[in-house]
């Protein structure tokens, strides 16, 4: 696959940021908007920032969050409240200051001449694909989206995708929107109906694994974004390893986006909720 990336990686910095807004999107999900001029001007779709949410004895390490969208000098982080870190994050008020390291990691790769992309999201997996969907649509590519979530309310960023995609199909576990069932039923059907150049996927790892297998059967390249526990975020500590066909890779610098065919899908590596 050829790569349309610039050759130079964006410079990674420790950037002081301030909270512009932090609002509840739905039960257990928030949208944090940070003024972060350096990251906003350099981040590429699929990259992440390593955020220091708070200080004190319970917050020794940073937390990695993908950048959902960029607007001017601000970046948007869509997050789910799962543990102590994200609970503290939900309490951040406008005007609060903190810092982040970023932009980090290898993001989504857009193959040259891409005409039609399939984006498959599960739950908060909609977060790291928002910026990509916007950029693909702006470049004139056709974007088809399959979204899955437990309920209609949890189909976060659905509006963004409906603004830029040609088709947005949804599935919910409880049937409150779209198809009653898993998003993988949608992706399987879409892969059978259309000719895609690439599949971009993010969500629970079990779901990504299924989508990767479907793409492989359809003969379409697939990229996935994997989550691991991380300490440094810049490639030094080797906490966030991903088992691949070419050995252990680091989610923080070799990923978080990987070619799906490279991944060995070792479920023991999936991080516990944090």
């Amino acid at each position: 696959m050829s790569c349309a990336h610039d050759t130079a990686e964006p410079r990674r910095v420790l950037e002081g940021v301030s909270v512009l807004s932090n609002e509840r999107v739905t039960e257990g999900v928030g949208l944090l908007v940070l003024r972060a001029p350096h990251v906003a001007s350099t981040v590429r779709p699929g990259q992440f920032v390593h955020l220091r949410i708070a200080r004190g004895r319970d917050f020794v390490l940073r937390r990695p969050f993908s950048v959902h969208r960029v607007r001017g000098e601000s970046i948007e982080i869509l997050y789910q409240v799962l543990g102590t870190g994200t609970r503290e994050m939900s309490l951040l008020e406008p005007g609060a200051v903190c810092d982040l390291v970023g932009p980090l990691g290898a993001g989504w790769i857009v193959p040259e001449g891409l005409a039609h992309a399939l984006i498959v999201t599960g739950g908060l997996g909609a977060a790291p694909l928002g910026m990509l969907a916007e950029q693909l649509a702006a470049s004139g590519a056709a974007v088809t989206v399959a979204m899955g979530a437990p309920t209609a309310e949890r189909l976060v960023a659905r509006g963004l995708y409906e603004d830029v995609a040609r088709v947005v199909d949804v599935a919910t576990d409880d049937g409150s929107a779209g198809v009653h069932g898993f998003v993988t039923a949608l992706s399987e059907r879409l892969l059978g109906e259309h000719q895609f150049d690439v599949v971009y996927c993010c969500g629970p790892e079990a779901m990504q694994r299924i989508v990767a297998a479907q793409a492989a059967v359809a003969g379409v390249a697939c990229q996935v974004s994997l989550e691991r526990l991380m300490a440094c975020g810049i490639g030094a500590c080797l906490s966030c390893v991903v088992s691949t066909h070419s050995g252990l890779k680091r989610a923080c610098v070799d990923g978080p986006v990987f070619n799906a065919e490279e991944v060995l899908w070792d479920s023991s590596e999936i991080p516990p909720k944090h």
Partner: protein
Amino acid sequence: MTVDMSVKVGNLELRNPVMTASGTFASGREFAEFVDLSHLGAIVTKGVSLNAWSGNASPRIAETSSGMLNSIGLQNPGVEAFIERDLAYLADVDVPVVVNVSGHSLAEYVALVERLDDHPQVNAFEINISCPNVDAGGMAFGTSCVPAAQITEACRAATMKPLIVKLSPNVTDIVEIALAVEAAGADAVSLINTLLGMAIDADTFKPKLARVVGGLSGPAIKPVALRMVWQVSNAVSVPVIGMGGIMTAEDAVEFMLAGASAVSVGTANFVDPTATMRVADGLSEFCRARGIARVSELTGALNTD
């Protein structure tokens, strides 16, 4: 006034006392965007072994109160890849390089030191006999006097370069280990490596680390590290490199007062990639503000009256 920040650790001359703790800084390249590597006292590399080691299963880290546990397990691509990638990179960086070496057996330590000994980029060795995360060798060599001395003596015979031995805190009496490696030819000792610990998820009844146990680092271990640096520096005549939870310049001052000639910043690198520079600049400022002409005057200046 200008503070003389230089220190000597045996024959190793450092621009300032701030080194990097092995395993927290890779070989420096990952930090080059954040830190002018030539402003460091020294880079202590991530542990290297003769052959490639794949490390432990995931999860490999857990955040704990004021600290973190790790059970990385010395994952590294082996010495040949280390020479090709890391030492080649460091050839263009003006900074002393201390290579941290590990082995599963005495023969592996010796072969590794011999392989690296004539390499121009290697300024010193740090012998890791204190990693709690490997099954064979590692900490087993560093928790009793006889194997600790044997490894030190064998490495000593293999190199004329400065030999630092990194000590484990997971012992009854760290002083007797320090004395044993000093007698066996160590030029300096570095301490402490991580404290063996564990973390449990009460919701799932599972350990937070796949290996169950791992090494505790960060501010949580600083009081233990300070105590051990103080005890060891009072007992040995070789220099002591102090580490364990240094996050700020003040922490570094405390280690020097306890008897350290130099210090290493470890876990702080994960939180703030510029931590080494913050500590070095702060140390200089600490001395300047107090009219201390040479930072080395802090070493062992603890007032216990």
